[in-house]
């Protein structure tokens, strides 16, 4: 029970502190009398806790950040999505070198998928910034609820069986060897269904750019269940792909003025510090319980985005 105390505190902070600021954007509204520095401070603290719970829950920071900050803070969704992309980008870049050196991220597997998703993420970012905010809110709410359903239901396969690589993956050398510490053996892996994978990553790029979510929630099942990469390689490569996809989309947000340092930087720093603590608490926190709590929080935030977009809960 004591181990769940930090989680309860985090949940209370996430739901109570920003709630007080719900309509604080406009002058004269409830949180408008707060000093300007209170907002980045609250944002930093919330992101710190989001970072802590994201690691044991096995979700990316970006996917938690956009619906929660977008739903409960006074910032316009444009700035929240811009900051969300940077949160996901900074996390992916920081993890990249270690993942590449350990072989858990595979360049040859990542690059063809990243090119397609990078190009489509630009398209997604342009669409997201051009569409009316209410439409984006509704689409965001529906996407988040879909992500919750996907994450709750998705199976995972440690070493999927791939009988034969497809011609594209064979030509591009999308294969490798993974050392399995459980058995002490080196296991050769290869992938299949690359054309379908490329099409799926095109769609993933659009969603990543449109909502600034990061897209590990979609990359992982696409690599693992669809293309047949081992689970660990899928997780590492998924994170690495994000570093390229979010780079492209981030430029669109930068050029459109949708990256506000006062929102983006405390979010990035808070989330990264929190993730470091989360990684250290990985053995202490009950991961399954944390994951259920985070999914419930995500569902609540998705519902909030949907109702906000429909004008039912403003």
């Amino acid at each position, binding site marked *: 029970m004591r181990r769940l105390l930090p989680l309860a505190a985090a949940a209370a902070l996430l739901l109570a502190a920003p709630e007080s600021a719900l309509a*604080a*954007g406009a*002058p004269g509204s409830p949180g*408008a009398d*707060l000093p300007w*520095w209170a*907002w980045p401070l609250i944002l930093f603290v919330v992101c710190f806790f989001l970072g802590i719970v994201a690691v044991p829950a096995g979700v990316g920071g970006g996917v938690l950040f956009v619906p929660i900050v977008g739903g409960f803070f*006074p910032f*316009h969704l*444009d*700035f929240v999505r*811009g900051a969300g992309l*940077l949160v996901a980008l*900074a996390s992916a*870049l920081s993890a*990249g*070198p*270690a993942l*590449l*050196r*350990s*072989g*858990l*991220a595979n*360049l040859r597997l990542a*690059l063809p998928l*990243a*090119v397609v998703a990078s*190009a489509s993420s*630009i398209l997604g970012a*342009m669409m997201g*910034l051009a569409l009316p905010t209410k439409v984006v809110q509704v689409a965001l709410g529906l996407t988040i609820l879909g992500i919750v359903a996907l994450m709750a239901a998705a199976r995972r396969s440690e070493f999927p069986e791939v009988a034969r690589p497809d011609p594209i993956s064979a030509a591009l*050398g999308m294969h490798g*060897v*993974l*050392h399995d*510490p459980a058995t002490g053996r080196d296991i050769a892996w290869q992938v299949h269904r690359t054309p379908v994978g490329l099409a799926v990553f095109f769609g993933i790029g659009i969603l990543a750019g449109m909502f600034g979510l990061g897209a590990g929630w979609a990359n992982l099942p696409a690599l693992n269940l669809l293309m047949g990469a081992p689970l660990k390689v899928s997780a590492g490569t998924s994170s690495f792909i994000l*570093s*390229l996809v979010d*780079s*492209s*989309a*981030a*430029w*669109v*947000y*930068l*050029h*459109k*003025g949708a*990256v*506000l*340092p*006062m*929102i*983006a*930087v*405390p979010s990035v*720093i808070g989330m*990264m510090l929190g993730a470091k603590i989360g990684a250290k608490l990985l053995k202490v926190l009950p991961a399954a319980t944390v994951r259920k709590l985070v999914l419930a929080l995500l569902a609540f935030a998705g519902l909030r985005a949907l109702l906000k977009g429909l004008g039912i809960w403003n």
Partner: protein
Amino acid sequence: MSGTEQVAPDQARYARLLAIGTNAGLGMLVVLFGIYMLGVVDPHVPHERLPDLWHLPSGDFLELARLEAGWGWTARLRHADILTLLGIVTLAFCSVPCLLAVMPIYWRSGQRMLFAICGMEVLVIVLAASGIIGGGH
């Protein structure tokens, strides 16, 4: 240890450069944001004015803050808030040198398709950064 026994040369080179770029970007972000928050250098948009603007769409924000879309911000680098964008730009661009660095490895080993794919990824990021695609040009 999980992973391959020996790091492939393309992965090792990419990882080395990515670590340098990421650390530089994050370091700049923290230092420049500290300067911005502490008011060491005047911002273009005063701190106190931000709560009146950040609930607006980015287009309205640019108009009211008298900022230009695209690369127009580089003309205002003497202001702390704009200066902070340098750290963000570094993070958004740091994959490009890594990609360029592994391209010769693929060329020498005859992996022309991977060479071309790296080139395409560089092109996508550079076009997005230039504002030619994605707006802001």
